């Protein structure tokens, strides 16, 4: 009897587990054509270009396209895909072959995905999307000598001690410091509250640097509140603490899903400070069922504005929307820029056809850190890289006005 119940319980548990795994994978994937296939097919028959030798560089991407973090991984996957398609359509001497492997946002799976890409013959690694897997993979690429460019893994741990790892996004401390400086210079908010996710490296990284910088330059941080993970649904305790402390600006270095709940719950309790967020907020306006009026007046730091009016952004947004039916966010834009950075760097190298991944890695490192190399992209113009692997580009603050971003 007891054994039977036990067995039944276990079966039910296993089934739930199976269902969960199934659902997330399904949700992330049904709406798009298999992107990696499109990439390989594109690059095969492209040899009709003309009198030069076509060199195909194999770029292997890693990111979560199933699981809790799938929304970020698919954005980097699709954004990069658009760049690859554009580059290959140029019929230039350099073509990109692109394969993207799922890491479910987990360290060990990311390392397996990386090894899979190694077997495939990748020459450059594009990824990972999230920080913790990226740190693990960067240690592997460093040892194996692969050039790695991540669109969105923003911790300094990703690049520290590794000459081969470069970032397209701001580092977390860099963003926290920039946020504090921006608030100081604009004089927004006399008393500042901070709510962040202390179970998340991205959120904690920004918050720690912000608080440290705020102390240094004399901003008045009156409340520091935390929550353990992004599955939290009730933020009234944290908001009440900020309200009681009299905060008239609340800094939210968090992702948009919890942030949307915070905005709604602040509204319910008649608490209307200025909310100020990091680049993780980007994407909130496109959430299903999100009431855009809640975000009115929200300030956020994002390198990419989908409402931008320049030709390149417009084309990118149109292509992305046509393929996937949603607006691209900064993850997608970072992914797009990564591919162009890799492509433009490869174009400047001599004798690339004979290079193996180690020589390519060293050549790219020399180029990226040389000081003369810069890339124009969707997330910044003439972006350069420091020796540490950090990108240097200007942070942009946007404000939500009538449901669209307005650059401040």
């Amino acid at each position, binding site marked *: 009897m007891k054994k039977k119940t036990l067995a039944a319980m276990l079966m039910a548990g296993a089934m739930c587990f199976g269902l969960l795994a199934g659902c997330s994978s399904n949700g992330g994937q049904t709406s798009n054509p298999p992107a990696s296939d499109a990439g390989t097919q594109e690059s095969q028959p492209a040899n009709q270009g003309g009198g030069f030798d076509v060199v195909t560089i194999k770029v292997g991407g890693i990111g979560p396209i199933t699981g809790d973090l799938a929304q970020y991984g698919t954005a980097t996957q699709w954004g990069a895909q658009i760049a690859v398609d554009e580059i290959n359509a140029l019929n230039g001497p350099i073509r990109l072959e692109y394969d993207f492997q799922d890491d479910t946002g987990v*360290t060990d799976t990311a390392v397996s995905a990386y090894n899979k890409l190694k077997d495939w013959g990748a020459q450059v690694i594009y990824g990972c999307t999230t920080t913790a897997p990226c740190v693990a993979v960067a240690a592997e690429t460093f040892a194996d000598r692969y050039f790695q460019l991540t669109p969105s893994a923003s911790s300094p741990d990703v690049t520290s001690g590794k000459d081969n790892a470069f970032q397209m996004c701001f580092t977390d401390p860099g963003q926290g410091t920039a946020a504090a400086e921006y608030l100081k210079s604009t004089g927004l908010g006399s008393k500042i509250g901070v709510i962040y996710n202390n*179970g998340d490296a991205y959120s904690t990284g920004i918050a720690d640097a912000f608080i440290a910088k705020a102390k240094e330059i004399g901003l008045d941080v009156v409340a520091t509140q935390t929550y353990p993970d992004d599955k939290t649904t009730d933020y009234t305790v944290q908001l009440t603490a900020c309200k009681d402390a009299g905060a008239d600006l609340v800094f939210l270095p968090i992702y948009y899903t919890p942030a949307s709940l915070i905005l709604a719950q602040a509204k319910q309790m008649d608490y209307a400070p200025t909310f100020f967020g990091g680049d993780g907020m980007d994407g909130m306006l496109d959430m299903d069922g999100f009431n855009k009026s809640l975000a009115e007046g929200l300030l956020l730091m994002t390198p990419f504005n989908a409402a931008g009016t320049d030709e390149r952004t417009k084309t990118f947004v149109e292509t992305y929307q046509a393929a996937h039916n949603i607006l691209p966010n900064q993850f997608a834009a970072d992914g797009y820029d990564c591919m162009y950075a890799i492509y433009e760097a490869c174009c400047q190298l001599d004798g690339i056809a004979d290079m193996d991944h180690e020589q390519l890695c060293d050549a790219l490192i020399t180029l990226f850190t040389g000081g003369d190399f810069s890339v124009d992209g969707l997330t910044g113009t003439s972006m350069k890289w420091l020796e540490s692997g950090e990108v240097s580009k200007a942070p942009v603050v946007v404000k939500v006005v009538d449901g669209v971003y307005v650059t401040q």
Partner: protein
Amino acid sequence: MKKINKNSLNGFINYGIVIAAFVILQAAIGMGRLSNSLQSLLVPACCYIVMAVSLNLTVGILGELSLGHAGFMSLGAFSGIVASILLQDLVPMAPLRLALSMVVGAAAGALGGVIVGVPVLRLQGDYLAIVTLAFGQIIKNIIMVLYVGVDENGFHMAASSDHFNLSADGTAIIKGPMGAVGVTKLASFTAGFILILITLVVVQNLVNSRSGRAIMALRDNRIAAESVGINVTKYKLMAFVTSAALAGAAGTLFGLNYSSTVASKFDFNTSILVLVFVVLGGLGSIRGSIIAAALLYVLPELLRSFDIAEYRMLIYAIVLILVMLATNNEQFTALMGRVGGWFKAAGKRIAGWLKSLGRTESKGKGGTTNG
């Protein structure tokens, strides 16, 4: 000669399978026939095999449902990482440092096992499941806010970054939600193989000992076992702590296989994953756990090779359900039993044939000496 009993024979077959698998895989690596992606799966697969075998001790042999096995793995992983970094200068030899770290990890796991086990094992059934579930979450949340580092002033540990006053040239080992970064990779497939063998020796000898019989008696009928004077708490604790210690050692090996490890990896899902390995391999069957853990861990990675890579997690889930249905299907188990019977019959025939061969040979020998 004493006749080998069925249980120890079973045990020897398990050692044989593991050793054969190790030799074949090593040979494949040596000949360059094993792809990078498969090679990278060897160490984590070893960890999960140890996890599954050790959880089987709690769930299959002791008969108590534990939903927090990943918590012990987490304890082992982070304490092992800390130990390996602290020992860096004292013990320059990597395999020895790995072994010492694994001992520390096992001790941490065992300590966790005692802390959870002593109050809870007096309870039965569902209560243990609930408490172990909570334990797993607590460990995860503690490590997420834990800052550990070492500098010239010694060892630092704090529960938030404000109180973590590490000097500028100190090494931060665990950085709260960022987890442990910059870990020197020490783990190797050989170490994983040895850990599996040690696990098998410990678990199989425990199961076949007097204590093991007492543990199984508790599982089958607690009241009857108590009535013949078996100390319930002692034997339950024995199985539970052994299981936790082995999980801790597996965690250390896992943690030292990657340069970064985060606490959120060892969440409820990981506990359930290991439980799935145990249940699908067969409760109480050590060999089943080994095979199920190895196959089911590698499967989602193998599915990357096909065009259906986008659906690999969905397929993985379906495979799990199919295995579950198959192993619970009477006709299927009967079929497997028949297949097993053939093997057994064939084995007997070979054994008989060898014996008769030996007999004729010795007879022949006898003949010559006589002559």
